């Protein structure tokens, strides 16, 4: 399928094309998260011949979300490759190219289509360097439009990051703003190891911000503290950063000071930033979209149980998807974490201790 209609109208605008032809414009205009992706791809392709983009419909069509819009026209079909319709193929070719000195940036069209890529990611991408003792490496990026909330068909709304967080040798990252998308994607492409780059598609076009096309990467080993607070720590990533920040705002109205942390890089995890915050607040609410059980939130809660037990004044709370499949779109918003659910959980932690 293609993106749902909710985003299709947006998808029809060729906003991506602009980013392409305006390297470091004098007065940079504000751009969306997806335009920031395009801008980062274009920047790195201009500066590094080894970078190629591949995936289904990434060429003349510019990707079903327009992430690669204009790249084919600018860089040609030898740098922007439409692949045959097979995710195993995309993953395998990507590992093959990366291990021979290229820097492929592959796209999985949707989260729900990346399962056939698991074998190559786990058995080869994550192990190439380890297995050969550094003789061959796998500097690849797999971009994955991620998550629900866009009224899309089946398998277009999955939050499946937990499949990869137990796999050593990978970086699993997820930006949540245009600026972080730009900086983290540059970092991912430049990283000498494989990076799974989840893009929260629900906020692809949520808002714009000025993102200078200066080629500055952001680190892939830190969490970002988006809001300081002293009463409770809200930890989240991806699209839920929006609801979490809104929840913090609501809590503030009730006199509760919430710190908001965007984990951004799930693995390897920067737990120190989370631990420091919880040492201060004594309370933690973890918010994510994936099913609760064995979602990545479990790891954060587990680390708190191991390392921050004596800092915690209240039980950890998780606000997550239910342990069911994300329903088709008539019900999906009832599945996802919401501002109200987050606020309620935060208040429970305050009530508890």
């Amino acid at each position, binding site marked *: *399928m*293609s*993106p*749902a*209609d909710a*985003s*299709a109208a947006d*998808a*029809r605008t060729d906003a991506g094309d602009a980013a392409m032809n305006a390297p470091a414009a004098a007065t940079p205009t504000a751009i969306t998260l997806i335009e920031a992706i395009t801008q980062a791809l274009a920047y790195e392709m201009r500066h590094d011949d080894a970078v190629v983009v591949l995936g*289904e*419909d990434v*060429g*003349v*069509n*510019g990707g*079903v979300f327009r992430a690669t819009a204009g790249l084919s026209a600018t860089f040609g079909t030898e740098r922007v490759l*439409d692949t*045959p*319709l*097979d995710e*195993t*193929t995309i993953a395998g070719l990507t590992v093959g190219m990366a291990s021979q000195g290229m820097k492929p940036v592959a796209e999985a069209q949707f989260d*729900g*289509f990346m*399962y*056939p890529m698991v074998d190559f990611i786990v058995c080869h991408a994550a192990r190439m360097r380890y297995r050969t003792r550094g003789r061959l490496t796998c500097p690849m990026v797999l971009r994955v439009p991620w998550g629900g909330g866009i*009224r*899309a*068909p*089946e*398998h*277009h709304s999955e939050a499946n990051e937990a499949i990869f967080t137990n796999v050593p040798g990978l970086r699993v990252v997820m930006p949540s703003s245009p600026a972080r998308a730009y900086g983290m994607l540059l970092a991912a492409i430049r990283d000498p190891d494989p990076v799974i780059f989840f893009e929260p598609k629900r906020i692809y076009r949520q808002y714009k911000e000025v993102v200078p096309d200066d080629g500055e990467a952001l680190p892939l080993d830190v969490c970002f503290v988006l809001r300081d607070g002293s009463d409770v720590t809200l930890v989240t990533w991806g699209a839920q950063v929006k609801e979490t920040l809104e929840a913090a705002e609501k809590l503030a109205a009730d006199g509760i000071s919430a710190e908001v942390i965007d984990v951004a890089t799930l693995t390897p995890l920067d737990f120190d930033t989370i631990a420091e915050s919880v040492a201060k607040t004594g309370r933690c609410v973890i918010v994510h979209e994936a099913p*609760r*059980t064995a979602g990545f939130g479990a790891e954060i809660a587990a680390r708190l149980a191991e390392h921050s037990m004596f800092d915690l004044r209240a039980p950890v709370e998780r606000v997550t998807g*239910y*342990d*069911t*499949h994300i*329903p*088709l*779109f*008539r*019900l*999906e918003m*009832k*599945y996802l974490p919401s501002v*109200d*659910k987050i606020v309620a959980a935060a208040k429970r932690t305050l009530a508890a201790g």
Partner: protein
Amino acid sequence: MTTAARFEIEYLQYLGKDGKPVAELPAAFADPKALLPLFKQMLFVRTFDTKAIALQRTGKLGTYAACLGHEATHVGIGASMRPEDVFAPSYREYGAQFMRGVQPREVLMYWGGDERGNDFAGPKHDYPWCVPISTQCLMAAGAALSFKLRKQPRVAVACCGDGGSSKTDFYAALNSAGAYTAPLVLCVINNGWAISVPRSAQTGAQTLAQKGIAGGLHCLQVDGNDLIAVLEGMRRAVERARGGQGGSVIEFMTYRLHDHTTADDARRYRGEDEVKDAWTRDPMVRLRTYLTAQGLWSEAEEKAWAEECGKRVDVEINAYLETPVQPVEAMFDHLYAELPHDLVAQRDAALALEGRA
């Protein structure tokens, strides 16, 4: 030089694009009356498709995958199966599915974001729509294998697109069907495009039919805009399968006259000329011309039937629109046969949020 193996792939076409026979028709069509209900079905499907697209444009349906131009292939496939056979569709073969008892309202429910669309009133054992491309082909191979093991004279028929024929699951299906001589018919509906990727970019093979050679299957290429060719190709494949002679790959040559889905804009990647040319091969026109020439169909009959189709589709649309959203606990229904203890608290929490604790 020694030759290890030789292969030849036949191409079937009976009606030219002008609606005139280009070859002797198969015996079954000595009396072309048999084609009439199928033509009417094709017209019904096109009516449904047009109205579904219109419904989507008003915001009352989610993304919808049109079947414009595929009517002969879809209806021909549906007509070639028995009720007890199993059909494994991709996501646009409504024409085949309607013939098997799937209700138009179910199609709308599915694209309208409601799981109940897949709970077909009709063919209880058919597979639901399948979004992960071509995985239905391999499930169908499993179904076919189960028929063989249980000695049931049933056939599994799966559809995928030209793009889908690149998918490893498609290859796994033909490989395993060949290995087990299972009664599987793989229908590759080559409509020229996989979203924006043209057929030529999918593979270096000159035909998609020849992929079946890799698994030792029977291979055939068929004009998918020619209902008679579709029926004849299917007849051969289904008979082989039911007779224990194993599986087939049939490539149906047709064209996607619409955008990929309502979320797609095909103008971004394909020229108008190509589409214009494809319209000259419209499967409706050629069959209409043929049946009219045979004195079996007229403009008046078409008008009356089109009106009837419109009415029937409207009934379905209304039924869809009037179906209330499932309650929140539907998420927990049918997840397991019985809700596990570990999920009860989550279900309760969901109900509580609705004030229904």
